[in-house]
């Protein structure tokens, strides 16, 4: 079977799937995942999974909410990641910008309006009591473009994400690491269609269980996980090692269990960028019943 994972190959969201595939954990759980459909992210992943035979996917929470808002029949069956530790804001080494406070009256490169990079920036500004309206946000279309603008002096700071931030660690200075200023929040979730869940509960459970085992395996042996991820994502082993190690501390990957406060924190962020206008009624969206029994209780 093929399942969809957002940012597959570029972001560490997908590490548990890589490990579970390489270690045969999916097979052990009772499903044969042969490959992963990757995508640039957001709604594309949801579209992709809807178009595929096994409509399960790990997607950004904003995309899952948007899909439901537009009346698509999807449910959230597990959580994926719960940290924003891979994201940061950087500036040039010789820049006078030392903290978020210094950004007032300056331009900051984000990837696209209403995207994750903007959301994190606004959340961090709010957390630190900086007036967001004084920070001009410029959409660059991508992290690399933002860096280019930074180097050209078009912006004072740019959003950045791993593993790019590790690859170019020596070129820029980190202003803020979002994982350090923002508390844990759910960033990606596993979704499927209601119809698929009804028809293939066993398969769905096996996928979730396999992924959960993958998460456990990462925490149990980070070095090995880094090796697997490095190979799958074509990262130099050294960089993969740093990337995975960076995520172990904040416990980036959840085994799948739901935490309402962590979910709501993300929603608060989405409200800041205007993606969401009202509180979310999770009871209609979540279905923990496909999780391993031990994880079914919500926090």
């Amino acid at each position, binding site marked *: 079977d093929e399942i969809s994972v957002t940012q*597959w*190959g*570029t972001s560490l969201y997908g590490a548990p799937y890589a490990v579970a595939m390489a270690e045969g954990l999916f097979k052990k759980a009772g499903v044969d995942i042969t*490959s*992963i*459909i*990757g*995508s*640039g992210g957001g709604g*594309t992943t949801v*579209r*992709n999974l809807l*178009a*595929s035979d096994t409509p399960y996917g790990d997607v950004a929470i904003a995309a899952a909410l948007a899909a439901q808002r537009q009346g698509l029949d999807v449910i959230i069956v597990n959580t994926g990641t719960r940290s924003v530790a891979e994201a940061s804001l950087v500036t040039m080494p010789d820049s006078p910008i030392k903290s978020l406070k210094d950004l007032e009256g300056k331009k900051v490169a984000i990837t696209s309006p209403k995207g994750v990079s903007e959301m994190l920036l606004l959340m961090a500004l709010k957390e630190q009591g900086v007036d967001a309206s004084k920070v001009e946000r410029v959409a660059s279309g*991508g*992290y*690399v473009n933002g*860096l*280019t603008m930074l*180097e*050209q002096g078009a912006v004072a700071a740019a959003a950045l994400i791993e*593993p*790019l931030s590790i*690859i*170019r660690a020596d*070129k820029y200075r980190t202003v803020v690491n979002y994982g350090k200023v923002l508390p844990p929040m759910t960033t990606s979730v596993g979704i499927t269609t209601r119809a698929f869940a009804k028809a293939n509960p066993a398969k769905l459970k096996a996928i979730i269980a396999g992924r959960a085992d993958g998460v456990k395996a990462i925490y149990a042996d980070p070095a090995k996980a880094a090796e697997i991820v490095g190979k799958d994502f*074509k990262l130099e082993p050294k960089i993969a090692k740093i990337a995975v190690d960076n995520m172990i501390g904040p416990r980036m990957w959840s085994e799948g269990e739901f935490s309402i406060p962590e979910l709501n924190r993300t929603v608060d962020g989405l409200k800041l960028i205007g993606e969401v206008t009202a509180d979310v009624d999770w009871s209609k969206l979540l279905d923990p019943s496909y999780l391993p029994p031990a994880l079914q209780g919500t926090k």
Partner: protein
Amino acid sequence: MIAMRHVLGPLLVILAGLVAWEALHLGVANSSLPSPLETLRQMGVLLGDPTFWKQAGQTFYAFAVAVVLSTAAGITLGVLLGMKRLAGEVAEPILVNLYSLPKVTLYPLVLLIFGLGISARIAFGIMHGLIPLTLFTMNAILQLKPVYRRSAAVMGLTSWQTAVSVILPAILPQVITGARLGVSLCLLGVLIGEMFASRNGLGYMVTHAMERGDMPTVLAVALLIAIVALVANGLLLALDRSRRPS
């Protein structure tokens, strides 16, 4: 000898382009603009990498299928529209309109219909390559000198013989011109498809490299694609030249 003469000039232009590139690289000194040398080195690395060949294989498979299908369909459609004058006149503005439409914006629709996978990319390639070939073929037939068909008639040729031994060779030069544009655009269509939503192929590789800021790979792939396009174009030109003397 003659081939040398045709190739030498363009080669000089390309060389001049490389020099300008190097100058630009030195001038702006930005990590997003690697030097030509870096790019060529990366190209060497790619060419020695089996996964690159796997991706390239994917792209060229989709490209080949798209080219074959759009060529066959384009010529057939062009011939049909060209023979039925009224149909041609009805269809032409519609085709021109479709041609000048930014087709990327229709890509969501293509994905929704064809799903992921190779068929969407092939479809997208065909969307780009089909129309120019159809238009060129159709116009070639509309502009075909009537005296050719009349000559065939007085020599007692059947309509099938006329089509095969008079009409087709007569329109071939324009069909080749259309094919040159069509093939280029087919490749572009497949690549854009891969860039936008795909998990393999050179277009995906470029997107992936862009996301990681790996500009040498981006430019190396772009160069390779340009070379392939140039070679394909050169072959079609040579085919055209071989058919008629200077």
